[in-house]
């Protein structure tokens, strides 16, 4: 029995299907041409459209079948295994049994060299046999579908057959299916977050999570008592770094950059400076995080020593917040740029004609008129900042402190999600599930901020259109 990896890889399968489709296409085109020549007139559809029709019938049913077959074959393999005599004395607890079966699976497909458990060794052969049988069966059914589809399509090619309509129906419905992907993903996010959060709140009360001030998640839970799942320090850390320090850096610099670019910079200078800001936006966050931890962190620590803090850490809210602010500058700048440019030029010209200086025009006319757009940009920036992960993981630390001291180490929602999910812990534990609860809070808040920001910007645009 084969103990090597199956030769039927995904890529080979794809190659086979593609070449079958191509062959069917060529046969279909020739068939349509001969039919047209024999009938001595042109058909309703072009030969190439008949060819596509035939190729679709040849390939599509088999491809769909191969896509869903693994779900069935896994069940069938499991069924075959459990009815095998060697499976009689499998452990009864579901967890042990699953571990044993997955070990045997590993042996059967060659990813494992030797068994840890002798029983897995016994099971490996029946599993290998079953997998082999059902792989052959699946390929056989697929081949039959290819032949049947080809024959069906081949004999429908006639001059009067409306192949184009059929093919275009398939094209348009595949477009519809593709566009539904976005809905499926949104739905998937909401459902998976809600589901895992629900399981978390079965273990830990909601009020402890939302209002508790002590965060130190543990594996074992003591029912009826606080278990260190109070997320308030994380919420505060997130707001402190993302919404306060980062915005204190990014808002003035971003807005002034936009004002300088739109009102003062010569067009040539502007065409150089704008791409530079875009580069700032394109730098990966892990690079920012490394910079914050390596360069800015020690500087901030020295500053903390200078202002008289004892034993400061190099991980601080300030270092993370400043770098995050810099990361956000391009976003605020481009949003402000757009909204300043959208102010009708009559307002600007009017103010200048009355004798106000450029600065007075900007501060008293342009900025107030563009304010909704700027505020919208800042809200979008806040939502980006609180969802940012790597900078805080690398530079803000993991200590859940409830402090307003910018030199102290704080932690954020995103940093804790990373912390909770990158160990090798049980998936079912409250510690792991709490990461999904944090994720849900993050998702809801960023979504709300975005909706508010987009509404503000849209209203403002309508006001001037």
């Amino acid at each position: 029995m084969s103990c090597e990896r199956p030769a039927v890889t995904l890529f080979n399968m794809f190659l086979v299907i593609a070449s079958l489709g191509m062959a069917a296409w060529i046969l279909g085109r020739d068939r349509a041409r001969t039919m047209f020549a024999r009938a001595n007139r042109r058909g309703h559809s072009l030969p190439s459209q008949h060819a596509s029709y035939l190729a679709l019938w040849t390939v599509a049913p088999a491809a769909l079948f191969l896509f869903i077959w693994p779900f069935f074959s896994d069940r069938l393999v499991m069924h075959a295994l459990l009815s095998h005599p060697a499976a009689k004395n499998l452990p009864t607890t579901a967890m042990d049994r699953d571990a044993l079966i997955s070990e045997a699976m590993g042996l059967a497909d060659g990813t494992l060299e030797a068994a840890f458990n002798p029983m897995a060794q016994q099971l490996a052969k029946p599993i290998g046999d079953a997998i082999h049988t059902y792989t052959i069966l699946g390929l056989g059914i697929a081949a039959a579908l290819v032949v049947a589809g080809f024959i069906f399509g081949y004999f429908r090619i006639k001059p009067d057959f409306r192949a184009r309509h059929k093919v275009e129906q398939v094209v348009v419905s595949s477009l519809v299916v593709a566009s539904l992907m976005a809905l499926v993903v949104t739905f998937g996010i909401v459902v998976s977050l809600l589901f895992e959060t629900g399981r978390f709140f079965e273990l830990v009360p909601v009020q402890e999570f939302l209002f508790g001030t002590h965060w130190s998640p543990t594996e074992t839970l003591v029912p009826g008592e606080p278990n260190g799942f109070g997320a308030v320090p994380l919420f505060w850390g997130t707001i402190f770094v993302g919404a306060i320090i980062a915005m204190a850096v990014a808002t003035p610099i971003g807005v002034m950059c936009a004002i300088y670019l739109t009102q003062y910079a010569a067009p040539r200078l502007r065409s150089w400076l704008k791409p530079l800001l875009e580069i700032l936006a394109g730098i990966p966050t892990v690079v920012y995080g490394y910079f914050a931890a390596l360069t800015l962190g020690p500087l901030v620590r020295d500053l903390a020593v200078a202002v008289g803090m004892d034993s400061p850490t190099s991980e601080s809210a300030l270092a993370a917040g400043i770098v995050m602010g810099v990361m956000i500058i391009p976003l605020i700048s481009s949003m402000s740029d757009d909204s300043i440019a959208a102010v009708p030029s009559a307002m600007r010209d009017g103010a200048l004609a009355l004798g106000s200086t450029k600065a007075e025009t900007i501060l008293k006319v342009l900025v107030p008129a563009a304010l909704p757009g700027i505020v919208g940009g800042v809200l979008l920036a806040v939502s980006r900042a609180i969802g940012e992960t790597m900078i805080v993981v690398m530079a803000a630390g993991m200590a859940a402190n409830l402090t307003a001291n910018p030199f102290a180490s704080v932690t954020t929602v995103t940093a804790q999600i990373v912390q909770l999910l990158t160990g090798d812990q049980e998936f079912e534990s409250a510690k792991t599930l709490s990461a999904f609860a944090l994720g849900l809070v993050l998702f809801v808040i960023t979504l709300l901020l975005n909706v508010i920001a987009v509404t503000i910007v849209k209203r403002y645009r309508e006001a001037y259109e």
Partner: protein
Amino acid sequence: MNKISEIVADTVRQPTDWSTAAMRRRIRKRYLFERLFSGVGLLAMVLAVGFLGLLLWVMLAGGIHGLSWTFLTASDATDPAQVGIWGALKGSLLTMAVTAALSIPIGVMTAVYLEEYAPRNRWTAIIEVSINNLAAVPSIIFGLLGLAIFLNFLHLPRSAPLVGGMTLALMTMPVIVIAGRNAITAVPPSIREAALGIGASKVQVVFHHVLPLAMPGILTGAIIGMARALGETAPLLMIGMRAFIPTPPSGITEPATVLPVQIFLWSDEIDTAFVEKTSAAIIVLLAFLLIMNGAAIYLRNRFEKRW
């Protein structure tokens, strides 16, 4: 109102004498503020660009000596003198291949449907809203989704470029849809009408005329989306692509790591010899991003038509 008309009447009777000392002082003050204000604007710009320069300089100065042929061709190791970037780079390339293979077709098809076919109804509105929201969802949430659905529900292999690529594809798809829609709207209606006029079907109009003309714009958006995915770290940490991988992955189902995650892992090492390696890895990552963004700008300038 009354007061203003009085002032106006006053001004008409006696034109302001701009040469008095008080007036000159006032004008000087206003011009000083003007200069100060534009100076603050310039300062903001200098700060932003200066930070970029500082960041690039720190990385270049710290990492340029870490770049060597061994570094570019070796994989991760415990000894900092032996480490290299090739394993992570190959992991990144495999992941990007999966991401591109999934997100570009789906993204372009969605953009075509929304721009060319979708009726204006509630369903279309819901799809549009969910695409715009997905573009704004924090990347770590996609990591949670990948962990819950791809790993725990579908039991796909952990740490593999397949799952990493699928997760990043969900993130990249909205970016491509938005860029694709803009590129498709920019194709003038006269092209569609001309094609329809000589008897092309709707599908032929879209696939023979609109899509080829919109291609440069779509590709630009796709490259920018892929560049963002290449620099992404957090969602890949969630699905376990942070394992120690001493040999480059040979396929999309093998355990692998990617460039940004490798940078993160090395930055956590205690051995100071890793500092140089981390900066060197950042240089490689930034070089790739520069090439991709350069390609996007080139495509945009070279092929984009203005109608």
